[in-house]
């Protein structure tokens, strides 16, 4: 591969990394609040968060286009306020990666915060510690294995995002071409050699992420469990 066509690797890593940071923070905050609060419409809200998991990527892409497109609610606002456009830029790829990977982080975090005895946190509260202190010293370390699983899955999903990205960011070489996009358009152009190289690379990245997660889980997860 020449230097120029390494751009998809760089863009994929960039979008997957940034989207993972965003969904890590948002997923943890929302999952923690959802796990500790009961309110009207909680189940509906949870279903909405998980929707991108079950919808075809094109539907997610259509929804994002509807929101962020030139005539979309947010799209128009961004153009009006900052003269800024999301469609056909790498930001589109980033937003698509965030939306499709969020449910994986959310689901992992919700399971992680729900799996240990709530009285462990209550015990810490009775010892005079603030919610913030308890979160960082008790909740977060206890949920960490599940949160880490969420991070790896969200990163892998962000790396592999295709459908919604294509609809929102389009395919513009050296601007919006992530690895999955490069594979599709290389195949379409009959350049099987390039496609094969990208396929091998993304399989290695995905395999390494899952393998490491499994290895780490087996080694660490049960360490301090009763």
């Amino acid at each position, binding site marked *: 591969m020449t230097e120029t066509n390494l751009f998809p690797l760089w863009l994929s890593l960039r979008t997957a990394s940034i989207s993972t940071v965003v969904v890590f923070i948002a997923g943890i905050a929302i999952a923690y609040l959802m796990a500790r609060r009961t309110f009207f419409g909680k189940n509906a809200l949870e279903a909405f968060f998980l929707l991108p998991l079950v919808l075809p990527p094109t539907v997610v892409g259509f929804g994002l286009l509807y929101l962020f497109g030139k005539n979309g609610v947010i799209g128009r606002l961004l153009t009006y306020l900052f003269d800024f456009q999301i469609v056909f830029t790498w930001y589109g790829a980033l937003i698509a990666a965030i939306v499709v990977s969020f449910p994986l982080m959310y689901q992992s975090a919700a399971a992680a915060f729900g799996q240990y005895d709530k009285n462990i946190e*209550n*015990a810490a509260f*009775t*010892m*005079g*510690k*603030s919610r913030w202190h308890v979160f960082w010293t008790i909740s977060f*370390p*206890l949920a960490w294995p599940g949160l880490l699983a969420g991070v790896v899955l969200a990163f892998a999903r962000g790396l592999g995002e295709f459908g919604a990205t294509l609809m929102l960011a389009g395919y513009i070489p050296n601007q919006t071409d992530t690895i999955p996009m490069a594979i599709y358009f290389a195949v379409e152009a009959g350049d099987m050699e390039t496609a094969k190289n990208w396929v091998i690379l993304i399989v290695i990245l995905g395999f390494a992420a899952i393998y490491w997660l499994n290895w780490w889980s087996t080694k660490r997860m049960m360490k*301090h469990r009763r």
Partner: protein
Amino acid sequence: MLQVSIYKQLSHFTIDVTFCAENEIIALTGPSGSGKTTILEAIAGLTKLDKGSIIVKERTFAADGKSLIPVQRRQVGYVFQDYALFPHKTVWENIAYGMKHESFTKQMIEDLAMKHLINQYPHEISGGEKQRTALIRAFATEPDVLLLDEPFAALDEQTKTKNYEQLLQLHQKWQIPVVFVSHNREEVERLASRVYTIQEGKFTMKALSSEENVTINEID
């Protein structure tokens, strides 16, 4: 001095109880699901009241059903049914988490013969040792009231007897009201100066025990 008046609607019944405790050990007993744990949670500030008040050492925790002091500032020691030890922290880190004075805490650890275990994790110690860790952890916060939710239920007879003595020993040193929930009649008679029997959220019997005898009074 602990003064409790709790009214709280649950899904199947209403908790409606009033009781007081001096610096003594009182017991709440009754069938599972009769509201005993909810009473402890209400005193600790872990659940809201519909009506009622909770006063400990002239500090009003709750009045007219409204919480006036949050759980963090109530200075309540709570030993949960499964002890709720922090599984990722050692025995010492558990005890030190809310500790007020290190010397007092270390003395307790010595008194309860737990010194050799302080670097162990909760999953590495026995049930009785876990219970003692939870008890020391609660006392280390130097609470104004101690709440124990079936603290001896999971222990064998020998360990129970040992841990009863240790609770009495700690209470002797640290004179505060102690409210404990139990199913075990022998345990209740041995530890408590007063026993309240609760059924579907209401006290049905009040037993006044002394060293010589136990009298059971029907409550009107």
